[in-house]
C-alpha cells in the first residue's frame, strides 16, 4: 500500500480454514522472516546472553534489541561508529528494537510522562533526561534495526482510571505522527505503530482505525500481558486482529508462554516477543511440550536423560538433567544452557505451527498440543473459549 515496500513486504503463504491462523513471509532488509515468529531478546544489555552464531543455529530469524539498554551500553556513539547494531554484534539477520519507553517506565520508578515525552532521572548521574518520540526514533535510526517501534504512552494494564487510559491511547496516536515525521530511514527501517487502549474495546477500535490511516507496513498490539486476567486478554487480541489489515504483519508485544502463543496464533497474530524463556531459565525451569521442568527438584539428581530427548539443541546434545540439576541456580553456565534449550523450544513450536498451517492441519495440531500439555484434560476456561471463538473445539 505505502511507498515503503522496499523496507518490508509481507506475503501470506497459507491461511487456516478454521481459525484465523496464517503463515506468511516477511521480507526485511536483512532477512526473510517466516511467520508466525517468536523473537528472542538477543541483546540483553551487556551481551551476557547468547552469541549471534548460537541464535542463528537455533534458527532465529529476527531478534529483539532493547533500545534503553543499548543506549547505555555500548552507547549510541559506539553503535554509530560501528555502523549500527548489526555490524557491532555480528548479527546478519533481522532485528527489531523497542522504543525504550517501556523499559524506562518499568525500570525507573521516577519516570514522568508528559505530552512532550517520558522524563526520567538517569540512574547513572542523576541528571534529567527526556525521551521524546523524536529522540526515540533518532536512537533507533542509529541502531539501524529492520523494524523500529514508535514511542507509546505506557499505562499499566491493570490500571483503572478511564480518563488516563483514554489519554494514553490518544497520546500514543499523536506520538506516532511525531515518530513518523522524525523518521530518517524509511527506505530501510519500518516503524510499527502500537495499538493501545488497554482492555477498553472502544479505545482499541479507535486506536487501530487511527493507526491504519498511516503509511506503515505493520502493527503492534501493546498494553497486554501485564497481569490482566486471561479472560480479558484474549478478546482484546482477537478484536485487534479483526480490526488490523489482513495484509500486514501483526506483532503482539510481550507474549511468549507456549499456550499463549498457540492461542494467539489461532487468533491471527504473526509476531511475538517475550523475556519469559530466558527469565524462567534463570530459575532453573526448562520448557517442554508437557510443561516446565524445574531442574532444581531432587528427582533429577541422577537423571541421565537430556531435558527433552526429541530436542536437538546443543544443551540436549551435551548435557544430562543430572548435571544441570547440580549446577542450576549456582553457575551462570546453567542459565545459558537452559536459555539455549528454551529458545530452541520456542523456535520449534513456531516452526511446527507454521508447518501445520501450511499443511492445513493447524486445528489438529492445537488439539494434540493441548492434550499433551493438559493430560488430565483440565483445560483452562480461557483456552477453551478463545479457541472455540475461532472454531477449534478442544472439548
Amino acid at each position, binding site marked *: 500500500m505505502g511507498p515503503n515496500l522496499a523496507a518490508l513486504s509481507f506475503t501470506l503463504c497459507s491461511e487456516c480454514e478454521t481459525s484465523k491462523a496464517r503463515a506468511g513471509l516477511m521480507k526485511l532488509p536483512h532477512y526473510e522472516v517466516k511467520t508466525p515468529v517468536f523473537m528472542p531478546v538477543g541483546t540483553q544489555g551487556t551481551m551476557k546472553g547468547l552469541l549471534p552464531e548460537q541464535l542463528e543455529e537455533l534458527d532465529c530469524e529476527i531478534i529483539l534489541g532493547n533500545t534503553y539498554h543499548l543506549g547505555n551500553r555500548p552507547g549510541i556513539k559506539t553503535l554509530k561508529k560501528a555502523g549500527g547494531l548489526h555490524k557491532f554484534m555480528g548479527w546478519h539477520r533481522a532485528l527489531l528494537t523497542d522504543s525504550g519507553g517501556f523499559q524506562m517506565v518499568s525500570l525507573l520508578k521516577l519516570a514522568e510522562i508528559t505530552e512532550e515525552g517520558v522524563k526520567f532521572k538517569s540512574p547513572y548521574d542523576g541528571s534529567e533526561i527526556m525521551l521524546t518520540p523524536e529522540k526515540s526514533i533518532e536512537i533507533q535510526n542509529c541502531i539501524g534495526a529492520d523494524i523500529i517501534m514508535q514511542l507509546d504512552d505506557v499505562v499499566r494494564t491493570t490500571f483503572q482510571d478511564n480518563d488516563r487510559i483514554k489519554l494514553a491511547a490518544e497520546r500514543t496516536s499523536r506520538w506516532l505522527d511525531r515518530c513518523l515525521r522524525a523518521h530518517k530511514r524509511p527506505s530501510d527501517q519500518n516503524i510499527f505503530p502500537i495499538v493501545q487502549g488497554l482492555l477498553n474495546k472502544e479505545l482499541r477500535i479507535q486506536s487501530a482505525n487511527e493507526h491504519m490511516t498511516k503509511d506503515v507496513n505493520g502493527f503492534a498490539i501493546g498494553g497486554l500481558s501485564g497481569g490482566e486476567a486471561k479472560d480479558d486478554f484474549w478478546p482484546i487480541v482477537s478484536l485487534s486482529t479483526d480490526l488490523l489489515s489482513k495484509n500486514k504483519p501483526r506483532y503482539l508485544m510481550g507474549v511468549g508462554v507456549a499456550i499463549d502463543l498457540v492461542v494467539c496464533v489461532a487468533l491471527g497474530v504473526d509476531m511475538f516477543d517475550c523475556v519469559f524463556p530466558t527469565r524462567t531459565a534463570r530459575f532453573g525451569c526448562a520448557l517442554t511440550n508437557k510443561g516446565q521442568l524445574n531442574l532444581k527438584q531432587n528427582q533429577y539428581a*541422577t537423571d541421565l536423560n537430556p531435558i527433552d530427548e526429541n530436542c536437538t539443541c546443543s544443551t540436549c546434545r551435551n548435557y*544430562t538433567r543430572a*548435571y544441570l540439576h*547440580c549446577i542450576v541456580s549456582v553457575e*551462570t*553456565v546453567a542459565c545459558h*544452557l537452559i536459555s539455549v534449550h528454551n529458545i530452541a523450544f520456542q523456535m520449534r513450536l513456531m516452526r511446527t505451527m507454521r508447518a501445520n498451517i501450511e499443511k492445513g492441519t493447524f486445528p489438529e495440531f492445537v488439539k494434540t498440543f493441548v492434550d499433551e500439555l493438559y493430560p488430565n484434560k483440565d483445560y483452562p476456561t480461557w483456552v477453551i473459549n478463545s479457541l472455540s471463538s475461532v472454531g477449534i473445539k478442544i472439548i
Partner: protein
Amino acid sequence: MHFIVNNDLLAPDGAGCERLGCLTGISKSPKTVIETPTAALMTQGGSVVHLTADVLARVFTEPKLLWVPLSNSIQLEAGLQAQGEGVAKFAGLPGHVSCATLQNITEITPNGHYELDKVPVWTKNGKKLLTAERYMELMEVFKPDIILAIADGRTSLDEGSKRISKSVDRTQKMLNVCMEKYKCSEVLADSLILGVIVGCGSEKMLEKSIENISKYSDILAGVAISGLSDGSERSFNASDKLSDTIPKNFLKVLEGCWKPDVVLTAIEYGWDIFDGSLPLKYKDDFNPILDGCECLTCRKHTRAHNLHNFDQLFCYARRHIAANTFDLFKKYIQEQCQKLDPFIVYKEESIKDLKQVDEHKKKIRTNDIDNINSG
C-alpha cells in the same frame, strides 16, 4: 597418560630453565596433545567459568586442560556416580583433559580448626572435612586425568613455623594414604598423580616437604606448589631445591593467581602448568571488547576474550622458547605490565620487532614449533 619434556630444546648456556613439553597418551582421547607451558581453564561445578561447552568450542578448537577444584564441584558426586564417565564428560566437555585438586587456592577461606588426619574444603554449603581416603574415593568418581594429591596447603608465607610444620606433617601422612590408594586403584590406572609441595614459608620445611615427595618419585608424575597466593616470586626458589631431588621429567604445576610477568618468570624457572585463575580476576565487560582482540567471538563474548587472551600469552611463550627468544619476550611483557595494568592484549606483531633485534640468537636453535609436536 604421560608427560614428555622436550629436553633437546633446553638451553644449555644457562639462559634459563624454560622448557617445552606435552601431555599425551590419554586413553579416552589418544590423539589429544596438551602443549606446555600452559594455563588450565578454571572450572566451577565442572564447567569452564561462564562458558558453555558450545561457546568454549567456538573459542578453542583444540582440547584444553580443565582445572577442577573439589571445593566448587563436590556437589556433582551423585550425578557423576550415576553416569560413571568422569567429570569432563559429565560437564559436557568430553575430549578435554581434567586436573582435579582440593580447592581453588585463590578463593579466600577462613582459617581455623584442623583435625589430625583431615583437611577442610570450603564449599558453597559450608565446610566439609576430608580425609585422604575420602579424597581418593572422590577421585575414583571424578576420574580426572591428573590428580593433585590432597594436601594441607593453605598456609601463607608469613605463617608461624608451628603451623607450617604441622602442615608438612599432615600433608606427608595424607600423601602416604593417597599413594596406597592410587597404587591399588584400577579406575585411576590411566590418571597421573602429583605430589603437592607445602611449607614454602620456611626453607627448612620446604626442603622437608620436597624430600617427603621425592620418596614417591617412582609413582608420582610431577609436583605442584600450593599455598602461595600473594603473587611473590619467593616461591620459585623452590625450583632450585627441586632440581636436586625431583626427576627432571616431572610435570611441574604452579597454583595461584599470578600476573603475566610473574608467570613468565615461573616459566623461566621450569614450571609447566598454571591454574586458570588469572583471567577470572578481570571481569570488566566492555573495554577489552572495544580495544582488544580483533576476533569476532572475543568481541562478542568478553569472558571468552579474557580466556583467549590469557591462552595467547602461553602460546607465544611456547613459540619464543622454541625460537630461543624467550628472554626478549619476557622483557617485553614486563614492560607492558608496568605500563598497562591490569591486563595486556598479547599481540604477536609487537613481538616481531623484538625478534628482529636479536635475530642471531634465534638462529642458534630450531624455531619450528611443529618439530616439537611431532617429536
